[in-house]
């Protein structure tokens, strides 16, 4: 691994050449590490002092399922670095450039996907120091000297003939060459001043480029139209006596206006770091180098953010450059920009070890020290950001630590963080011996992890130049579940991860596994945490919907439909993946099942989330299964199970086993106030004809109701008085409504009403 401590022999930060990496001393604590195939375990042998041989204790650590970091499958493969092949990496486009013989025998560009991969040839005009495409592979910039940068046009829709006519074209090597010749370097930007050196450059958009010299930065735009025809442009820097750039010009030939200076800043620069996602450039200034000046590039402008000073562990006397580029990284965590500073311990005996200090860089306002990550060890470290986690690789122990800056540590001072999990190494990885070309006959061999030839880039990239691999680092959530004892903390942690849903659901299933797993208080905490996220999403969605309905005209820019992340675990997720299976379990006491269901309902209620009917059904089903009717009755009495028609119907169906369910059901229908027809049906089915009639009259539905079913029900009772009463009641109604006691034709029940009456009365 190109450890932060050493890897920058080369001064440009954006260019990292892999030919100049240092080797590391071998391990001192662990003697041998071997991986037992098939058994999935790592055998670590520790040297025992004073012991001769034979009885060497071997400690077997079952770690195979504990590797929570891994290298993603399908790495980007490229020709490994060698004496004839230089390798470069561009953080902005995530492209690896393999430049053979200065480009003369080909430049192979490999990006994260096939679309961003290009191969071409260019003139060998000396050793390439830095090579980068503008965003979208439109323009290639190549730096060969510290004074100049050359440009090559790759705008595709440009008619090739016209282009070649205007440019010096290298003759094609032959039809068989896989590398198409490219119009050779045509635009050259060079510094004329003797003491200003180009430290590097960064593309900030497809046609905007910023040069960083040791004396300042310059921000250029390649003209959209003229760029198509640019041929040779020479940029001239004119510097004042103090070394500051006073003026700069450029020679453009034939079109002088194809490169336009937008802005420039004069400042002494030691080194720089660039964050492509936010287009923020960080400059190290002053003699000690610990005053950092961030600059933000946006829409062709540079805006200066407030500068800040990094606290050094020791102030050197006399002053010299003390803040090294390799100890600083810039990255976005949880959507906020942070500068991470790897602070090595001062060599005092009671030093607690190195730490990573995070400086928050807000868009507006001053930058401040916000988090301290305790590494509790010393040595060589490298940093990655994966899924908003800060990953710290420690080379000598061959392990990595992860930190979550949002995880509150109760026993630490504010914003001081301990590693979330115990240190573990990256999951073993295998590569085929033959390198990029897969030879099926040869089995893949384990790749040496934490190798000294590794190079680490933000946010999550690890490159092995000597082997020709670019990996993306990723976190595996499943192994973390067993490493983090505190389930509440675990849930907080998981809810902030990207692909967390299945893991969260499996944790839920686990904690419900039985009493030894986790108690009710833990279950309650976990539910509360889940539902808090669920509620936040629902609220955001609701306010969005409300805003859309009220008309998109007002404040339309601010409203964006809230994204439903995987952390939103709704009721149906819980029901299908956790609760329904849980209630089926035979090895768990029903008391616990009911307690868990009630706990979930409580948590939903606490977050003002409407509980779905199927959860109530689950509660009722469980209670009924265990004959806990009185419990059910009490729940209904306190409206814990909210009223709904389906629930009322479910209760009606329970009447045969638990008679009071009938009353509960009727009460519920009454409260719903939209279920008057159902109430009438229930009463009629109980032959409470008068009751039904009185009820429908009390709710004012008497005028519209069909007489037929009442009369039917009355006839079935066989009570003649009752029938007569009902009949008269409807006659009176008809009289009142239509001035005539007769029934409408539709209200007969088979025979003319009068006839039926005569039969009953007889």
């Amino acid at each position, binding site marked *: 691994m190109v450890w932060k401590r050493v890897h920058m022999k080369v001064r440009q930060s954006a260019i990292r050449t892999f030919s100049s990496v240092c080797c590391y001393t071998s391990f001192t604590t662990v003697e041998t590490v071997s991986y037992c195939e098939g058994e999935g375990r790592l055998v670590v042998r520790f040297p025992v002092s004073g012991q001769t041989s034979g009885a060497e204790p071997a400690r077997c650590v079952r770690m195979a399922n504990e590797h929570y970091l891994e290298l993603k499958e399908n790495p980007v493969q490229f020709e490994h670095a060698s004496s004839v092949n230089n390798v470069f990496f561009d953080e902005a486009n995530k492209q690896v450039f393999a430049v053979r013989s200065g480009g003369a025998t080909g430049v192979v560009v490999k990006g994260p996907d096939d679309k961003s991969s290009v191969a071409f040839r260019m003139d060998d005009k000396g050793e390439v120091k830095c090579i980068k495409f503008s965003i979208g592979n439109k323009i290639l910039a190549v730096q060969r000297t510290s004074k100049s940068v050359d440009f090559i046009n790759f705008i595709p829709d440009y008619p090739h003939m016209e282009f070649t006519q205007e440019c010096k074209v290298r003759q094609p090597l032959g039809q068989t060459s896989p590398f198409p010749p490219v119009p050779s370097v045509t635009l050259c930007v060079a510094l004329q001043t003797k003491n200003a050196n180009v430290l590097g450059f960064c593309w900030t958009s497809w046609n905007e480029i910023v040069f960083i010299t040791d004396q300042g930065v310059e921000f250029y735009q390649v003209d959209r139209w003229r760029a198509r025809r640019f041929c040779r442009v020479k940029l001239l820097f004119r510097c004042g006596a103090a070394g500051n750039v006073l003026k700069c010009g450029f020679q453009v030939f034939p079109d002088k206006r194809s490169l336009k200076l937008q802005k420039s800043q004069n400042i002494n620069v030691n080194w720089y770091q660039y964050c492509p996602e936010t287009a923020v450039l960080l400059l190290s200034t002053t003699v000690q180098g610990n005053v950092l000046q961030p600059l933000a590039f946006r829409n062709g402008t540079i805006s200066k953010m407030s500068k800040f000073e990094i606290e050094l562990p020791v102030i050197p006397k006399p002053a010299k450059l003390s803040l090294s580029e390799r100890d600083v990284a810039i990255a976005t965590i949880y959507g906020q920009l942070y500068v991470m500073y790897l602070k090595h311990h001062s060599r005092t005996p009671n030093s607690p070890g190195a730490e990573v200090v995070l400086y928050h860089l807000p868009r507006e306002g001053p930058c401040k020290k916000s988090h301290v990550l305790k590494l509790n060890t010393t040595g060589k470290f490298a940093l990655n950001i994966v899924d908003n986690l800060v990953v710290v690789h420690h080379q000598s122990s061959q392990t990595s630590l992860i930190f979550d800056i949002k995880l509150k540590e109760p026993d630490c001072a504010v914003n001081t963080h301990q590693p979330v999990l115990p240190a573990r190494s990256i999951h073993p990885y295998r590569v085929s011996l033959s390198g990029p070309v897969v030879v099926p006959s040869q089995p893949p061999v384990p790749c040496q992890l934490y190798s000294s030839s590794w190079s680490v880039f933000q946010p999550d990239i690890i490159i092995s130049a000597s082997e020709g691999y670019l990996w993306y680092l990723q976190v595996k959530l499943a192994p973390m579940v067993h490493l983090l004892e505190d389930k509440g903390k675990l849930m907080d942690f998981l809810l902030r991860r990207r692909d967390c849903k299945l893991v969260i659901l499996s944790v839920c299933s686990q904690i419900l596994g039985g009493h030894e797993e986790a108690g*009710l208080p833990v279950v309650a905490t976990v539910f509360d945490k889940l539902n808090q996220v669920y509620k936040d999403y629902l609220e955001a969605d609701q306010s969005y919907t409300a805003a859309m309905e009220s008309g998109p005209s007002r404040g339309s820019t601010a409203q964006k439909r809230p994204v439903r992340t995987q952390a939103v675990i709704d009721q149906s997720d819980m029901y299908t993946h956790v609760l329904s299976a849980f209630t089926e379990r035979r090895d768990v006491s029903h008391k616990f099942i009911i307690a868990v269901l009630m706990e979930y309902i*409580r948590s939903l*209620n606490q977050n003002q989330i409407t509980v779905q009917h199927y959860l109530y059904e689950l509660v009722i089903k469980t209670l009924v299964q265990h004959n806990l009717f009185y419990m059910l*009755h*009490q729940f209904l009495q306190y409206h*814990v199970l909210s009223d709904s028609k389906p629930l009322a119907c479910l209760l009606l169906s329970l009447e045969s086993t638990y008679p*009071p369910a009938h009353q509960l059901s*009727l009460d519920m229908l009454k409260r719903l106030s939209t279920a008057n027809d159902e109430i009438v049906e229930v009463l009629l089915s109980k032959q*409470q004809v008068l009751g039904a009639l*009185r009820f429908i009259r009390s709710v004012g539905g008497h005028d519209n109701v069909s007489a037929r079913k009442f009369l039917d029900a009355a006839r079935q009772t066989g009570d003649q008085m009752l029938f007569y009463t009902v009949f008269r009641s409807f006659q009176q109604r008809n009289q009142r409504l239509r001035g005539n006691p007769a029934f409408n034709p539709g209200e007969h029940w088979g025979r003319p009403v009068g006839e039926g009456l005569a039969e009953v009365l007889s």
Partner: protein
Amino acid sequence: MLMISPKMASGVQEKQYTPCLLSFFIYNPTFGPREGEEEKKILFYHPSAVEKNEKIRNVGLCEAIVQFTRTFCPTKPAKSLHTQKNRQFFFEPEENFWMVMVVRNPMIEKPNKDGKPPTIEYQEEEILDTVYGAVVRQCYCMYKLFNSTFGRAMEAGGVELLIQKLEKFFYRYLQTLHLQSCDLLDVFGGISFFPLDKMTYLKIQSFVNQVEERLSLIKYTAFLYNDQLIWSGLEQDDMRILYKYLTTSLFPRHSEPELAGRDSPLRPEVAGNLLHYGRFLTGPTNLKDPEAKFRFPKIFISAVDGYEELHLIVYKAMSAAACFMISASVELTRQFCEQLDSLVGPQLTLLASDICEQFTINRRISGPEKEPQFKFIYFNHMNLAEKSTIHMRKTASVCLTSVHPDLMKILGDINCDFARVDEDEEIIVKAMTDYWVVGKKSDQRELYVILNQKNANLIEVNEEVKRLCATQFNNIFFLD
């Protein structure tokens, strides 16, 4: 009990006596079937000072009446015997075991002028069979709660043990019977539920579940606030009698220290317990006391296979009380009690203040408490929920009602009428004292309303009751 009648007839003072307990006995006719062995039938007799022959005579009379009435209806023998001076109630809780309560009718003593002894007028129709019949049944249930059935005592230790148990239990229990204040509520034997919003209720659920999980010895839990039930893990019938015991006996005995100020000597020692207000109502009064005994009353509840014996731990913090029931086969230790105290105490204190807060909020929302024009008693047979605005708070000694006993009797009468038929009905009575009394029965619910509207007519009263139902009982299905 002597009560001065409101009627003061021409300066001559009448003395009115309320009903009182004359005697109470339990016998089993099979224990002394032969002549000369009659005494063996008697298992318990109150007052015990009564001469043996009189005891035998009284028991014999009851036996004879029951036997005689059996000839008319073998399954339903006589339940009560009305005489001029008193009324006797018969109850056979277990086969061949009879409980008899003799209540003296209320009477009015009218002094005569010329030094003659005062004339006594017995009011034979004043007491209700249903009310006192229920009292006898309650006596049995209460005995059963603490001692299990008669039969079980017989199995365990024969007649001697049974007699001993009866003596021990009823000697104390009969003193707490206040026959003059028995009324319709005794017939219902209902449970008053504490009105609570869903969220607070769920919090209590959560509390109960978590305690039961942590202290896995606990088999059942009941939760009360302000002497009103919120949660019962027991089945309805067991809860009904336990509730009766808690609210009429245990809580009133312990209410005084709570009412007393913090520094009052009445307040139990709360040394070092400043974190919470929790304390044991049963068992040890002070956990810190090295002499403290960790013995709790035992209760019997019905289980699938007969009866289950449990320790009853009642723990209270402010107005919230939690009853924990633990299998009697487990020995309860100091350690357990301390664990319970430290776990439940703080949480219960917090819950109690939560409930109190929620309750006041709800009260504020529902508007200032207006003195309503009517008073009512509501009872639901299905969940035994009762609600009364007639009764004042129950205290250890008496149950105060805010209406005249005559009206209470009308309520009882209406209840008897309802009991006779299965159908829903409504009865409206105009009382002598210008009150209107309305009884409504809908499905399994009964509602009794007393309206104080002198000049109202029947229609107006009906309308008024409808309005009451619409406002007070809008969330239940009530036919009108």
